[in-house]
């Protein structure tokens, strides 16, 4: 190891002595900046990832639609399912119904799913909090938890469904027809953890939706789940091209991109705002190193007398900035991971102290704080922090290199 790096290390971490306070303060600044950045950015990633995966669970990664009805949905589903990048594909139909229970009406979104697909059933089976997925048939529904609690519904209860088509028929008959609702049973109650779905959605079989909307054998589209959801855009383009008019792909980003765009924008804003902590830390490093250079003036003179070049002297102090940057960043990553590991306990404690325990679920639709560390973010945060800390060492290094050795040796 070159002597100037060795001395830089020993200035910061002396042999057989206590940890110097100046090293501790400089490191603390970088550790706090890096760990805060990692925690906040990872939480934003977590929100994005959770929302994406919940959209994928309910909407699918991609849907093939025509703008109208799809006449041969099972044939098209089989064709799409044979593609290597596709995990599963099945027809769906969706719309809105009015649901009446004990004279209390609500208008949820309804989605008819392909009950021939085991994966589709298994997914909703995983979300079930009451009832049994095997009870789902053409005369029953799965009700989302928020919706069920609004109407105090339980598995086995019977509800009445009215569709827009029924209303239209009633209007066309000038009031001579009697409006007969479809009575269906509650087969189960599900909860995805995403409030947007859990508040206002019911799931039926595709057959029931085809009956309610008078679709015959048609469907509104094919719902696709991919092996890699992040490939949705590319595969959507491929399918749109290969299937030709009138088919076109609509990805989860097209449908819910607004939510994710906001999260991305917030993530970028938070990155710039929180990076100020690292910049403030770099000023602390600079001021500590400047003080240190003054304290070590005679030592700098000695090194020059022993044959150290001005460049080596500069490297010695610049390296101290670099070492603080590297050590602070590594410790910051470790501390950040630790905070992320205990994030839910920490947020629960804070929420309880502030008596806002349920606010996260209400506002964000998550019962816990999601987090996801992405390598690209770690690389950017680490690289920028190390560069900034090293730059902070440049002015003290320049000052050291420009010292007159004779004056340095004479200094008191």
């Amino acid at each position, binding site marked *: 190891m070159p002597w100037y790096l060795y*001395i830089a290390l*020993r200035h910061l971490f*002396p042999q*057989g002595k206590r940890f110097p306070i100046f090293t501790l303060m400089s490191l603390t600044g970088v550790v706090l900046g890096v760990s805060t950045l990692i925690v906040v950015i990872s939480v934003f990633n977590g929100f994005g990832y959770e929302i994406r995966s919940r959209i994928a669970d309910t909407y699918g990664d991609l849907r093939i639609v025509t703008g109208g009805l799809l006449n041969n949905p099972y044939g098209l589903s089989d064709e799409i399912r044979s593609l290597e990048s596709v995990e599963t594909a099945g027809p769906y139909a969706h719309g809105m119904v009015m649901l009446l229970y004990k004279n209390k009406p609500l208008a949820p979104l309804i989605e008819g799913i392909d009950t021939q697909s085991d994966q589709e059933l298994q997914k909703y089976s995983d979300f079930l909090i009451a009832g049994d997925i095997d009870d789902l048939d053409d005369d029953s529904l799965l009700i989302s938890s928020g919706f069920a609690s609004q109407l105090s519904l339980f598995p086995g209860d019977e509800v009445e469904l009215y569709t827009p088509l029924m209303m239209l028929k009633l209007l066309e008959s000038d009031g001579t027809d009697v409006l007969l609702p479809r009575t269906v049973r509650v087969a189960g109650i599900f909860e995805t953890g995403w409030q947007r779905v859990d508040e206002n959605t019911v799931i039926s079989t595709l057959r029931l939706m085809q009956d309610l909307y008078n679709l015959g054998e048609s469907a509104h589209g094919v719902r696709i789940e991919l092996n890699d959801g992040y490939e949705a855009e590319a595969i959507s383009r491929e399918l749109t091209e290969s299937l030709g008019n009138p088919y076109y792909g609509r990805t989860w980003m097209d449908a819910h991109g607004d939510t994710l765009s906001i999260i991305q924008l917030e993530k970028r804003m938070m990155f710039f705002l929180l990076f100020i902590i690292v910049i403030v830390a770099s000023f602390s490093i600079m001021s500590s190193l400047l003080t240190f250079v003054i304290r070590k003036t*005679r030592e700098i003179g000695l090194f*020059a*007398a*022993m*044959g150290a070049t*001005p460049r080596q002297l500069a490297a010695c102090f610049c390296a101290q900035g670099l070492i603080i940057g590297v050590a602070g960043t590594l410790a910051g990553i470790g501390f950040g991971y630790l905070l992320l590991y205990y994030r839910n306990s920490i947020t629960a404690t804070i929420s309880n102290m502030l008596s806002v325990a349920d606010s996260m679920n209400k506002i964000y639709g998550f019962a816990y704080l999601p987090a996801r560390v992405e390598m690209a973010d770690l690389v950017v945060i680490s690289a920028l922090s190390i560069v900034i800390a090293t730059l902070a060492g440049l002015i003290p290094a320049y000052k050291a290199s420009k010292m007159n050795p004779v004056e340095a040796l004479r200094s008191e």
Partner: protein
Amino acid sequence: MSSPLIEAQGLARRFQSGDGFLEVLKNVDLRIETGDTVSIQGESGCGKSTLLNLLAGLDQPDAGKLLWESSAVTGFPNDQLAIRRARLIGMVFQSYYLVPEIRILENVMLGGRIAGKTDNLEERSNVLLERVGLADRRKSLPATLSGGERQRVAIARAMVTMPKALLADEPTGNLDEATGDSIMDMLQELCDEEGIALVLVTHNSVYAARMSHSWNLRQGILEPV
């Protein structure tokens, strides 16, 4: 006559003092050859240390020329001067200047590391510590050593690069008489053994008298004693 290790030709140095200039060195000529022992005496503030710094290339003269091994180094860029100094000259100061954050052995080795002489450096450092009687303190920190012991370490550090000349600026100035005597004995002995030229700046006429050449600096002029 062999070619000199260090040669000063008409060196002059002046410093700003109030509105005028204070001429500290006037037309100083000095020749130091391999194995020479040279003392420079003079009153406090007469310019002894200034002359030593000029000879070491740490300071630049206002006039005159400095030659190291017969080549002029006056006006050399600092980087090149530092590299040549590390090979040719070792320095010992009154205030020892040990690095407090590293152990004694590392302090001695530091001299070799800076000079880029890293072959057998640890072995040579250990030998030198043994020679200065501090082999058992090699793992101690400078703060735990007495003044005399620190100066011994500083001497070992200066010698570890195997310099051709050792410039010592009042090396016993901070020590009591007995310790000073032992340091001087050791310094001379080591220089004799290694054939190193010793330039000693001192107030002590007894130490000065031990040198083969003695000079006195008075009002900027260097005169033989």
